[in-house]
């Protein structure tokens, strides 16, 4: 089951995770009341119920939770090109306010359309041709077959657009953290996750954590944590030798 379908039962919200995000984006849910740690705990509980680590689900979850954290930090809702990390809180608040106002206007327009539709309920008109009308003949000029080739070529060359594009996040590749941690493990048999990712953005921290899960899945490391929210300890697995793996990033999750 995808992470976005994760059922949540929080104080402020009950329902699937993706609905929570949608409500937050639409300003229908007060973000201050959303317990992000509760979301994480719910996910961890579900993970614990399973024997196998579902890396795809983890990746998606981390991406979504990172989105939520970024939102909560008021730095998410930047314009297409703006670098999120460069946004100061005031600019981010401005951006968020603009975006919410934009959505409000759309809702107003939708309400106007709904009223209009109701008012026009009594207007019946014919859909389709008249019963005794001649069938219109459509003629087409001679066409160039090169247009067909061009159409297919364009379809075959179409760049894949980003999923979750509306969240407008930029994801650093997991590979970057994989190499970094592997290099670290060559020098040290154990390290502390929190101190390694100190100073990174939340998004980078989330992707770094994903890299940890990947290393653990491959049996390269062991993870331990004394208590929830205590520092995460990483220990090199003596049996495994660090090796290069295929590039993998959060976007392909």
């Amino acid at each position, binding site marked *: 089951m995808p992470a976005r379908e994760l059922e949540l039962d929080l104080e402020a919200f009950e329902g699937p995770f993706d609905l929570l995000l949608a409500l937050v984006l639409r300003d229908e849910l007060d973000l201050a009341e959303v317990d992000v740690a509760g979301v994480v705990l719910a996910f961890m509980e579900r993970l614990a119920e399973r024997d196998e680590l579902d890396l795809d689900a983890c990746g998606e979850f981390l991406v979504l939770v990172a989105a939520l954290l970024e939102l909560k930090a008021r730095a998410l809702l930047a314009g297409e090109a703006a670098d999120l990390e460069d946004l100061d809180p005031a600019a981010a608040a401005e951006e968020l306010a603009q975006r919410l106002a934009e959505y409000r206007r759309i809702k107003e327009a939708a309400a106007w359309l709904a009223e209009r539709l109701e008012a026009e309920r009594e207007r019946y008109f014919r859909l389709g041709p008249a*019963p*005794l009308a*001649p069938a219109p003949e459509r003629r087409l000029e*001679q*066409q*160039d*077959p090169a*247009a067909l*080739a061009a159409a297919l070529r364009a379809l075959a060359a179409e760049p894949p657009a980003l999923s979750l594009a509306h969240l407008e996040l930029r994801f650093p590749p997991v590979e970057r953290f994989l190499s970094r941690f592997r290099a670290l493990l060559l020098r040290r048999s154990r390290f502390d996750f929190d101190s390694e990712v100190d100073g990174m953005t939340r998004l980078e921290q989330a992707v770094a954590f994903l890299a940890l899960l990947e290393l653990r899945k491959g049996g390269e490391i062991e993870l331990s944590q004394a208590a929830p929210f205590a520092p995460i300890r990483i220990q090199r697995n003596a049996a495994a030798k660090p090796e290069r793996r295929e590039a993998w990033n959060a976007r392909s999750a």
Partner: protein
Amino acid sequence: MERPLRLVAANPLDRLARTLEALLVVASQPLSVAELAEATGDDAERVETALGLLSERFHEGRSGIVLEKVAAGWAFRASRDAAEACGRLFERPVERGLSAAALETLAVIAYLGPCSRPEIARLRGVAADSVVAGLVERGLIAEAGRDQSVGAVRYRVTPLFERVFGLESLSELPRLDDLGSEAEEIRDRLESLAEARPA
């Protein structure tokens, strides 16, 4: 003349006639007396009488809208006086080109061979129903049996398609060697792209 006119306006039969007018102008096929009676909640006899009134009003030579009784029922048609103008209305000018959606769909079917609507939708990443219906209506594609596994109707290009694109046969389509030498190869490529594309 004023007085009888007012009387007619107040007459429920005239009211019924107006409702019938309304029904007939919305209908896409001739309506029977039974259908009209049911829709108006009136009896067949009164509907017949009202139709008689309307036939008088919407009569050839008197009105551009003519009420006609055909085998299946009653329907409005254009008066014969307007035949020439109607001819011009329905004779559409020769169209210069096809929409991007139509061209893409034709390209998929022409290059990959018979495809079903679900296949076309998957490859293009958008629903194909209206585009396919439009191309069928124009005679550029036609049904070609059903997909073996799913049972969906498949479509092929028609001889008219070949004429419009000036092709003796599909083997004359411009080569797409950069995409793949075989239709299968091109199809695989499009499919993997479609999968990568957000739904």
